[in-house]
């Protein structure tokens, strides 16, 4: 049996093949498409998801955002993990 993926700051998150994160040209909006689900991420989530490319860890993603928004790194890491854990639990995110 597979195990639940528990995200940590060193996890390198990636959107799996069967999930699509894309900009719909007709609707003019970003969408996360998964089996029987269409999620519309908010602007911050869009920024995070764009970085879930299987190359950088959550910590590195957070460092980028912490610089950009001049916010405390620890808090940003926590927020990103909360957000991405929810997606991982639904099967919309995996680790690389």
């Amino acid at each position: 049996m597979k195990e639940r993926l528990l995200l940590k700051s060193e996890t390198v998150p990636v959107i799996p093949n069967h999930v699509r994160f894309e900009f719909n040209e007709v609707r003019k909006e970003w969408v996360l498409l998964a089996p029987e689900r269409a999620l519309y991420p908010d602007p911050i989530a869009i920024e995070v998801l764009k970085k879930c490319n299987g190359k950088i860890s959550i910590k590195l993603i957070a460092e980028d955002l912490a610089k950009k928004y001049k916010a405390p790194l620890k808090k940003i890491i926590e927020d990103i993990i909360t957000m991405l854990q929810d997606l991982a639990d639904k099967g919309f995110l995996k680790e690389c």
Partner: protein
Amino acid sequence: MLKKLKAPLAVLAELSHRCPLSCAYCSNPIELVEKNKELDTNDWIRVIDEAADLGIHQIHFSGGEPTARKDLEQMVEHAHKRKLYTNLITSAVLLSRERLEKLKKLGLEHVQVSFQDSERENANRIGNFKGGHEKKLEVAKWVRELGMPLTINAVMHRQNLHHLDDMIKMSVDLDADRLEVANVQYYGWALKNRAAFMPTKDQLESSMEIVEKARKNLKGILVIDYVLPDYYAKRPKSCMGGWGRQFLNISPEGNVLPCHAAETIKSFKFDNVKDKSLAWIWENSEPFNKFRGTDWMPSPCKTCDRREIDWGGCRCQALALTGDIGAVDPTCEFSPLHEKIFGSATKESGSEAPEFIYRLLSNKEVEPVKK
């Protein structure tokens, strides 16, 4: 681009009403569309283009049994090319591994396999198809071997709810991502057999406990969707996410419907994709506009604080059970008919289950089949 409305999110393409199974709870209409009236390949390709042009995200290939169409490959390929997220909703019994592999290569992204039970004998009795359960297990394994996400669609009712635990275990063993616990909905053919399938209150309570427990234990492993059957609910479900809000459904002959049961509403004339574009139909079709939003709502819906949560529930059910399509969905405890209708239906579950009537395309007569 649409002028007045947001585009729908998904389209349910019912490619054919033909089906090798003959489940007595079939949700398709009593009168099925015959093969020679089905839309042809070119019609469907054009419809897929129109759906993509509208900004629709997802296409669900369904039926009946969508794999009964030999041109499914062409449709999947075209939908994928037009960037629609493709989903196959299948009974699986007609699929070969080669065909599944080809569909995947052409862009199929998700497969949903229906199961009638976790126990072989009962499953094959309910679907009335020998060897069906074994074949479904095999296809489900192929889906995962080919690296596609798998949803198990378990239709549950009085005659299999006691196996819910096993059904969950089976889904985990098959490495499914998602399990849909679909309690039978009593439209179309299923209403004929309501007494045979209506679960008891005890069964339902225990099934809710099982689901809650499994959701906790299987977090991150298996997502379980569970919808309480209407007959035991206090508030109606948000049918299709609201009439004409998110979904459209295309029947095998091309009628565009707000939900797959809408043709039970005989007073409506539905527009057809052969005559009008999907965009035109979504915005202008009379049946779509009739119950869109909240203006049409009767009291007490109109002032209810849940009016934009459940959108007035299910119109087909309101018509089937009250005779009035504009009535409050009797599922709702504020319907004046709630007690009368649902009280009597749930009483059926207290007596012995009658024999059910199989759904057979060739069987025009309606005769009970021995268990």
